[in-house]
């Protein structure tokens, strides 16, 4: 029996990297959104420019689930290298659409899937003489055929093409022609529609389809960042590039046309973070965008910024580690490398967005917190958020919001004789006052150093004042708990003794997994962490439950360890659920794993859990 589904299925495109498939595939996803049906789209791509296999997954989801589901109902198998694997991965009852220009033996297919052949290469070779055109239009013809197979409104795709090529009008007609050729050919020669169809809906609402890195970069623009120093590194590169293009549109002096920003591509990550530290020391909002290997290189400077109390914002778009690892796959495996970056006793503030929308919000907030707390702040993105487009609520900015520059003494403050000691805890919150260089001719200068210093920023090797200063840093870290975004807690419909902790890009899959588990009668209270240090409510949530599953995308259960270290939680209470193979964690994986654990695990006695 073939799968029959309206607005709820997964289409996976299997392509060859560099063949121009990406834009056609994205056009397909956008068309579905224009019809009003939400999609969750993901790129699964190699660390390669041309030739290796690449996949694009469009989850058509009337219910609006943004996580990866797992599995595929329709595979568009355009890559002979992966053909067998792709066919094997289709759900029973699914569909395989393939290029039938060359005969494929029946043994290559499965009996339980519907096979749809279309001689795409043959058609293109007949229609076009230029090899590049043959390649590019093949992708568009394919989209046309899919529109017919899935019963999509072709006019929507026509309109999209017209918008996409508005600047290159010649291409509009050519692309539309290819699209219709594919559509008409499929209508005439294939049995349309198949069991999977897309029907007009209003479920998309006012949502926007945006790449996480672009949203984070836009957050940096709204957060008042003026200096970006960076080094190209997958998957963070597109964040720096997006900041560049946002600034080109949004950050000019209207009269002179001069830039109200400075972007420097540094020679390495040491230099990137060094420039960030220098710029922030001098009162500009500065940031870098990097990934795990860059974080490793930045360690020494991060310790300096922590100890000398210089603001710095680091967007870490995490990828698969350790070492070079999997540059084009996703993980949440830099938590501890960031939270405790650098030698000596250090702790850092982390903001952990769940999607592109929060990447924008936290991207802006990071600059306020770095200035307020005078310390490095990490925005912990990952490849799944950063390099995929997601359908999220529109971005909003409160016009009355002021940038919080933190405790900075002005010329007037200094001139009026206010006491200035760079590392003096005047307000009892562990946060001292600073001055920007060049503020006053005779007051407020200080020497910034990573060597031991006292509260007046003087070099000292006296144990007392040195220890007093680093203890104050702990107090400051405590103050940070009030500034980081609070956890989001969602309670099950019925009282339950089971809880789940998750964070970051696991969020979208978790929403769905919790719904799946609830349907099976497993009720769970859910807490999504959004920052480090842990805000009020985190320890309480754990205390309220007998058993808490900590779901994360790394091997070593890093968040679980951090909960144990910082909150003194009994390890027996925290049951780890981990996925770290590279693709994003799926709702199915979470639901299956927790479903099993919840039915197997003996409930911990309350006394023991609390001891």
């Amino acid at each position, binding site marked *: 029996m073939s799968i029959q589904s309206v607005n709820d299925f997964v289409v996976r495109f299997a392509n060859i990297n560099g063949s121009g498939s990406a834009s056609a595939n994205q056009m397909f996803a956008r068309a579905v*959104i224009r019809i009003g049906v939400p999609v969750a789209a993901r790129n699964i791509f190699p660390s390669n420019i041309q030739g290796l296999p690449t996949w694009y997954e469009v989850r058509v989801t009337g219910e609006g689930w943004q996580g990866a589901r797992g599995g595929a109902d329709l595979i568009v198998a355009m890559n002979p290298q992966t053909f067998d694997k792709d066919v094997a991965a289709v759900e029973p009852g699914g569909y395989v659409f393939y290029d039938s220009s060359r005969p494929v033996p029946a043994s290559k297919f499965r009996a339980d899937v519907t096979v749809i052949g279309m001689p795409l290469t043959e058609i293109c070779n007949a229609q076009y003489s230029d090899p590049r055109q043959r390649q590019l239009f093949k992708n568009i013809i394919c989209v046309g055929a899919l529109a017919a197979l899935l019963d999509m409104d072709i006019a929507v795709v026509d309109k999209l093409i017209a918008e996409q090529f508005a600047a290159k009008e010649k291409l509009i007609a050519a692309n539309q022609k290819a699209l219709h050729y594919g559509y008409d050919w499929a209508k005439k020669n294939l049995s349309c529609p198949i069991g999977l169809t897309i029907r007009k809906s209003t479920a998309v609402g*006012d949502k*926007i*389809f*945006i790449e996480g890195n672009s949203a984070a970069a*836009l957050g940096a623009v*709204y957060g*008042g960042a*003026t*200096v970006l*120093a960076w080094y190209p590194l997958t998957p963070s590169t597109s964040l720096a590039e997006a900041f560049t293009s946002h600034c080109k549109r*949004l*950050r000019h002096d209207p009269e*002179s046309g*001069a*830039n*109200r920003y*400075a972007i*420097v591509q*540094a*020679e390495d990550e*040491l*230099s*990137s973070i*060094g*420039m*960030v*530290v*220098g*710029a922030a*020391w*001098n*009162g*500009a909002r*500065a940031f870098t965008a990097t990934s795990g290997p860059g974080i490793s290189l930045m360690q*020494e400077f991060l310790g*300096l910024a922590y100890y000398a109390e210089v603001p710095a914002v680091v967007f870490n778009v995490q990828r698969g580690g350790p070492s070079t690892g999997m540059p084009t796959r996703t993980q949440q495996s830099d938590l501890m490398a960031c939270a405790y970056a650098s030698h000596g006793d250090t702790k850092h503030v982390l903001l952990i967005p769940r999607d592109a929308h929060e990447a924008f919000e936290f991207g802006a907030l990071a600059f306020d917190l770095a200035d307020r707390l005078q310390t490095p702040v990490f925005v912990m993105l990952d490849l799944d958020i950063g390099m995929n487009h997601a359908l999220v609520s529109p*971005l*909003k*900015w409160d016009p009355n*919001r002021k*940038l919080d520059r933190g405790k900075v003494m002005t010329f007037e403050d200094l001139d009026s004789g206010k006491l200035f000691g760079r590392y003096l805890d005047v307000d009892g919150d562990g946060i001292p006052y600073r001055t*920007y*260089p*060049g*503020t006053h*001719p*005779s007051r407020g*200068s*200080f*020497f*910034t*150093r*990573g*060597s031991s210093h006292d509260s*007046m920023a*003087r*070099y*000292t090797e*006296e144990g007392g004042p040195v220890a007093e200063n680093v203890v104050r840093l702990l107090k400051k870290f405590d103050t940070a708990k009030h500034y980081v975004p609070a956890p989001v807690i969602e309670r099950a419909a019925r009282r339950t003794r089971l809880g789940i902790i998750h964070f970051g890009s696991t969020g979208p899959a978790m929403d769905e997994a919790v719904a799946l588990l609830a349907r099976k009668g497993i009720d769970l209270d859910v807490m999504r962490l959004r920052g480090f240090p842990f805000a009020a409510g985190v320890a309480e949530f754990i205390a309220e439950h007998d058993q808490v599953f900590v779901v994360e995308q790394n091997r070593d259960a890093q968040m679980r360890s951090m909960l144990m270290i910082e909150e003194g939680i009994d390890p027996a209470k925290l049951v780890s659920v981990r996925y770290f193979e590279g693709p994003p964690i799926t709702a199915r994986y979470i639901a299956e794993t927790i479903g099993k654990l919840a039915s197997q695990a003996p409930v911990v006695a309350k006394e023991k859990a609390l001891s």
Partner: protein
Amino acid sequence: MTFLPKPKFHHPAIARNELGLTHRDYEGSISTLCAGCGHDSISSAIMHACFELNLPPHRIAKLSGIGCSSKTPTYFLGPAHGFNSVHGRMPSVLTGANLANRELIYLGVSGDGDSASIGFGQFAHSIRRGVNMTYIVANNGVYGLTKGQFSATADKGARQKKGTINTDSPIDLVRMALQLGATFVGRSFSGDKTQLVPLIKAALEHKGPAFIDCLSPCVAFNNHDGSTKSFDYVRAHNEALNSLDFVSERAPITTEYAPGEMQVVRLHDGSSIRLRKIGDGYDVHDRHAAMTYLSQREDSGEIVTGLIYMHPEPEEMHEHLGTVATPLNRLSDQELVPSQAALDKINAALR
């Protein structure tokens, strides 16, 4: 050692500059370097240069890395903000600081270990990026704080105090700076204040990357026979290319020179550098000739000092970046934060 305050008294008739400041206003705290250290002479030359240029000390940002040389910013220009960063990374911190506020004067102080060994990359990139700064390397060929290991500027065949002979080729930061596009390059000797002070003045006034390699003997670990960075050795092999005077725009020319003896190099702000030429026919604007000259003299065992090269039309990083005239750290919320209307437009384009 903790902070050492200096007594505040001074002679009532002490000289004041145009800002009404005395040389005491350009001092820092007491040096904790070894007695006789060449680096203290460099600090002193920096104070002199700033005093004579009438620079408000608080408008200078002094940055350094790690090492003996990098300690020195504590010992001069007390009213200026200072930043003793991490080893070999002063150039990036200085670059970032400069990005944030293009109005301050940036003075980077580094050493041969800091700039030629661990920080060779950052030295190179800050110069090729055209950062408007004065970058002084106090070059003594050894690591002082770790007690006398060779650095990357140690000459081949030089003998360490404990007897080891250096077999590695030296890095000549002056020739590197020339190759990398520094628009002002000089070399001097901490023992020659009459040459060093005007050189630093000219560098501070230069709008672009100005690099000075200053030989500065280490009295504790590299001042013995067999060293090529000792006071005696440098004095004996110093080949002064020119001696120079930095003349502010208002100062009249008082000393007379025979024609051909003096080259006046005019600067954009109206000031000038007067080179009393000792080298024959040396053109301070000719970069290729400078490179050749340095190679030739090095082969004959001489150390060329003086103003080696100056670009007549220097450019700096902000011109390349097209940044606004107002320092980025002074831009208001209104100038930085786009409107909700702009965001609505972005949202609309993403549907």
